[in-house]
């Protein structure tokens, strides 16, 4: 008898006829006291508050062109290395409407993820979109199918995420519903909540344990929504 059969049989035998009822957990709205309110502005505000608590940065941009300007300003202070930029329609939209961003892409960015980890590790900035943003937890959903693979976002020292406001969902429930409905085969997804961190040294919080030290999210098309982060954005643009 194989070990598989031995294990399964001994479990079946010991289980006897005792029945247990499967009661799925109720929706997140019923479990969590910090479940966001339903309005669009509330979702953005919730997301940005959570991400900021997690030491990430969150900005709102009125348009794709404003997002382009913002990205250039965010990476301006970084060194003059090369950038890895995911192939995504939102990034093409930004490039179309913002000439300087498009120039930056053509001179300093690679658009295909290299096959070896060594070259991937040389980039100083990574720009990608997210499949979804989760308001309650301030999380970014990155799935291998859509987001440039499973290594990218965990290797670059500075990760910039751009997403449309329509991509924000209230809670993790919405993420798993979407995952379960996907028909193509996918092998990986990560729920990213803030820049990489550790507290293993006398419980001191240190960012950038292995992955990004810095994580910024730009929500595009958030016109007219006043959040703490959009004020930061205005401040950044006026500098």
């Amino acid at each position, binding site marked *: 008898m194989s*070990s598989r059969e031995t294990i399964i049989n001994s479990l079946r035998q010991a289980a006897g006829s005792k029945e247990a009822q499967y009661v799925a*957990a109720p929706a997140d709205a019923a479990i969590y006291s910090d479940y966001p309110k339903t309005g669009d502005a509330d979702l953005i505000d919730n997301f940005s508050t959570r991400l900021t608590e997690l030491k990430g940065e969150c900005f709102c941009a009125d348009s794709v062109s404003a997002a382009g300007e913002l990205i250039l300003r965010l990476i301006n202070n970084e060194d003059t290395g090369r950038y890895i930029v995911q192939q995504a329609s939102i990034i093409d939209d930004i490039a179309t409407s913002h000439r300087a961003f498009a120039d930056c892409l053509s001179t300093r960015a690679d658009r295909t993820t290299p096959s070896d980890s060594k070259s991937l590790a040389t980039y100083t900035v990574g720009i990608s979109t997210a499949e979804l943003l989760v308001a309650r937890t301030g999380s970014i959903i990155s799935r291998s199918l859509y987001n440039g693979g499973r*290594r990218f976002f965990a290797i670059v020292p500075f990760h910039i995420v751009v997403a449309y406001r329509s991509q924000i969902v209230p809670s993790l429930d919405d993420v798993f519903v979407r995952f379960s409905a996907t028909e193509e085969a996918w092998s990986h997804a990560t729920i990213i*909540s803030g820049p990489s961190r550790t507290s293993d*040294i006398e419980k001191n919080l*240190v960012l*950038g344990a292995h992955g990004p030290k810095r994580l910024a999210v730009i929500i595009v098309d958030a016109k007219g929504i006043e959040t703490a982060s959009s004020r930061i954005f205005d401040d950044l643009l006026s500098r």
Partner: protein
Amino acid sequence: MTESVLFSRRAEIKAKDNAHRAKLGKAIRTYDIAVANMKSRQFSDWEAARRLAAGIKDYSIQNLPNLLESFEEKISARGAQVLWAEDASEARGFLIDILRTESVAKVVKSKSMTTEEIEVNELLENVGIDVHESDLGELIVQLAGEKPYHIVTPAMHKSIAEISELFHKHLGANRTDSPEELTAIARSHLRETFITADAGITGANFIVANDGSIVVTENEGNAILTAACPRIHIVIVGIEKVIPSLADLSLFLPLLATSGTGQRITCYNSIFRGPRQVGEVDGPEKMFVILLDNGRTRLFANENARESLRCIRCGACLNTCPVFKTVGGHAYNTVYQGPIGSVVTPHMKGLREWGHLSHASSLCGACTSVCPVKIDLHNLLLDNRASLVRANSSDWRLEMAMRYWARLMTRRDRVDRVMKVWKWIVHPFLRVLPISFTRSIPSIASESFSQHWRRHVESRNNH
């Protein structure tokens, strides 16, 4: 020397070690504040969330065979290979076979207690395969040549100075007292390892039955890199980690993060469902999942102890346990420390050698009160004590002592007589025994409780 004697010796040394107590105290105080804060900020009703989680895990444990088969079917369809190991030696055999067939020379590991159970590091070192821990805490204990101190915080017992010394000695780094610099040293050391390793070994926090997923929760990003960079990904996971559906994660991920570290959700929660698929830009060429029994079916067969398979390894019972806080994680000499370790180790590794851990508890019930999946830990410890007594029933001295004890304790007048002997003959001796050097021995009250009761309460009632 037996494990029982060794436990007492190690416990005594640590109980008197003030530096150890200070490090542990600092870590646990930080943890306590974060957890209390997040419970109230995040959950509308923590008790209700615990009940839900316990219910889902109960269902999962009761239906393990079906759920495991479903998991196997789904993940195999995407090209992962599932292997079932009855015990540690079979799992070690599988692992060596895979590494040899795939000509692996260098392995990178993320944090995993199951790999501690089957002692992967020792195994690989013996056959000449390079093995590197990538979780910062695990790296620290690996460099120190020690075992993890705590299931969630493996290097809880190391001070900044000690870590700096280890990095200086083993990694050639300059000494520093900055946690940021120490983390940066580990980062650059391990970056090279991720890039050059042939295989990555991870554990799993959950396995999802309905769609064949492995879920790994972490903060550093090392588990993702372990599963993403090398060409082979090997998962070693206990069979009890299964949950029915992906949707259950929206409860379990925040629950585990809150109880484990006081976070709303940990920084990276990754779902791995196979090797690289058509249309994906990267991912390993091959994925193997080793499902480990190693005593879990024995736990399952015991109807009382079965509920301990609900455990999601958050470490909350360790952090609240007055015994753990006094003796520390290494005193136990087990993979799983603290109350949960004392419950499961005798079942997994033998009652005769490990039964003494049932007594490493004051039965105060703090562990039970914090467990996010409501395992009745202190009563299970009591259960283990009962098994221990039954296993030793051939001991005539114990039999005799207990029979006399029962005769004494069931009659008031006998208790009173014994107490008189105690008061006038035994108690004065206590004051000259070694225990009186470290403790002050309180004196016995002039009248017994029953005398006091008669004099005050009964006489008052008679008026």
